[in-house]
């Protein structure tokens, strides 16, 4: 799924963008996507992800570098000739046109005959289960319905590439989850290549084939969701994706797949070195809350354990969330499944915790 070489359908090559000529919003971006991929650009606001999308759509020009679509450079093609579908954050439906007229608009400007237009509009409306609403105006629809129409409008002229700019941001949680499913289903059924921008990591993880995590104008990691979550490349990605426990320390010994880290509070733990290379280097050790084991019987022989004090126990239904004091850190969180043999801890209790060395990753500090 590297999508390198000739197979790339969308490619950013050494792209830079600066609005004021001084600070770079996008720094040396390289990205290639094969046809049919659902790629999400995820990142905090100001990380450059929306700028990348706008450059692809043609509303911003790259200061440096080249953007290619199907092997052709599109730097000098105006937005209206790119043939890329787009779903806007605020939907951008034309308020003076009915739903059917909105959908018919891209077909009219492409000079498609009236009968073909009607058939395509009907098909697109049925596709998003909005067949009954052709004569309504956008203002008469709910947010979720407008979202579907915006999606149908971006797909009605059968583009090969569709861009989505935080399309679900304005919907409530339940509707958002439903639409996440529906958008992925449509994208896969129609075989379209999708670039999806969001700052919601759940959305990114559940919908995408690959996720590009943006920060500070660079892609910090580009990987499938499971790899991104389980094997973050650096401490930004580890912090940004999912919940994460961090312990600070210094590398004491590196031997192949494992390293020993002396925590600032004095304890020694074993971790997997990810981007530390020298003894004596400062490191941020990251462990996912659900990979921490409190039942010592389940732990492998020779596993390192740490002493911990329970600070808070939260019952969340399907899981228990326990906040511990570990090695001087008061925000160490452990998530355990609500199972009959799982004890409900009380604040003040002293326990021992441990983990598998491969779940504990020594990252840059």
């Amino acid at each position, binding site marked *: 799924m590297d999508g390198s070489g000739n197979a790339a359908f969308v490619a950013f090559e050494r792209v830079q963008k600066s609005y004021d000529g001084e600070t770079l919003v996008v720094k040396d971006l390289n990205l290639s996507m094969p046809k049919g991929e659902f790629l999400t650009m995820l990142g905090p606001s100001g990380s450059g992800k929306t700028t990348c999308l706008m450059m692809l759509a043609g509303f911003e020009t790259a200061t440096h570098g080249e953007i290619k679509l199907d092997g052709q450079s599109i730097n000098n093609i105006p937005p209206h000739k790119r043939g890329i579908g787009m779903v806007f954050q605020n939907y951008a439906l034309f308020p003076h046109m009915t739903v059917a007229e909105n959908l018919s*608009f*891209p077909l009219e400007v492409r000079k498609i005959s009236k009968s073909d237009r009607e058939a395509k509009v009907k098909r697109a409306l049925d596709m998003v289960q909005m067949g009954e609403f052709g004569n309504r*105006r956008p203002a008469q629809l709910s947010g979720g319905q407008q979202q579907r129409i915006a999606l149908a409008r971006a797909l009605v002229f059968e583009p090969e590439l569709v861009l989505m700019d935080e399309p679900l941001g304005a919907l409530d949680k339940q509707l958002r989850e439903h639409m996440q499913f529906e958008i992925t289903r449509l994208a896969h059924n129609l075989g379209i290549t999708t670039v999806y921008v969001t700052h919601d990591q759940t959305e990114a993880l559940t919908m995408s084939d690959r996720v590009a995590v943006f920060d500070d104008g660079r892609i910090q990691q580009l990987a499938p969701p499971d790899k991104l979550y389980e094997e973050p490349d650096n401490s930004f990605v580890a912090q940004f994706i999912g919940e994460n426990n961090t312990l600070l320390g210094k590398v004491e010994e590196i031997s192949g797949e494992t390293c020993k880290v002396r925590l600032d509070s004095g304890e020694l733990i074993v971790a997997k070195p990810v981007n530390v290379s020298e003894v004596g280097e400062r490191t941020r050790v990251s462990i996912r809350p659900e990979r921490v084991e409190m039942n010592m019987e389940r732990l492998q022989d020779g596993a390192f354990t740490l002493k911990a004090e329970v600070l808070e126990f939260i019952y969340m239904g399907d899981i228990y969330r326990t906040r511990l004091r570990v090695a001087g850190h008061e925000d160490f969180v452990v998530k355990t499944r609500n199972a009959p043999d799982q004890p409900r801890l009380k604040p003040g209790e002293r326990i021992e915790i441990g983990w598998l060395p491969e779940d504990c990753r020594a990252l840059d500090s």
Partner: protein
Amino acid sequence: MSALPPYASTGQRIWHYGFRTICGLIFFFLIAPIMVIVPLSFNAENFFTFTPEMLRLDPEGYSLRHYVDFFTNPNWQGPLWNSIKIAPAATLLSVCLGTLAAIGLSQPHVPGRRAIMAMLISPMIVPLIISAAGMYFFYSRIGLQGTYFGVVLAHAALGIPFVIITVTATLVGFDSSLTRAAANLGASPVTTFFRVQMPLILPGVISGGLFAFITSFDEVVVVLFLGSASQKTLPWQMFTGLREQISPTILAAATVLITISIVLLATLEILRRRSERLRGLSPS
């Protein structure tokens, strides 16, 4: 307006009624002088006063003779047709130029947009007599003084500020992602303008156009400077009529102008409400 709450203090009560009195007086002073003209224009006599018959509401005291005079006398018909020719031409010109200027000046990257805007709006602020005198000297040099085209051009310059202001106000509420969406869907900038932007800013364009039309239709100072006898407009004729032959036909002409203004403003309001309904700003 809400009624006084039971806990209102004496001061609040005084202000409550004082406010209503002031509002009433303002309306009275604005409207009474205009309303008085309407019954007077139906005067059967050649005077500017209410005759005893009129006060008794006797049908004998009323007649349409001044209206007949207005619509048949060549002294009035010529100026009426001149006004009807000049005002729409000036309106068309100011709407086209004003709308383009407003759209151009609403782009954030235009250098010196505030200065350009101030310059274009200046005809509204500079005393009319000064603009008129300036135009007179300038237009006579280039041979436009005393021509229809010259008067139309001058009136367009006076109307443009109204169009710019109303269209700029509408553009503030215009969502620029709509033009992006149109471009993304494959529409060229020209198609985008006519199919997406224009229909949505139309209320602003229409109200600007109406103001421009009324400016030209009511204008007397500039046309006195720039026009020759053959471009005599209705306000000019009323102005000379008042000085030379005080005839109640002026009142009939005034009533006709008032009616036109009311009809235009009512049309404007209906169009505005219709477009709000289409845009979903108010419940249908």
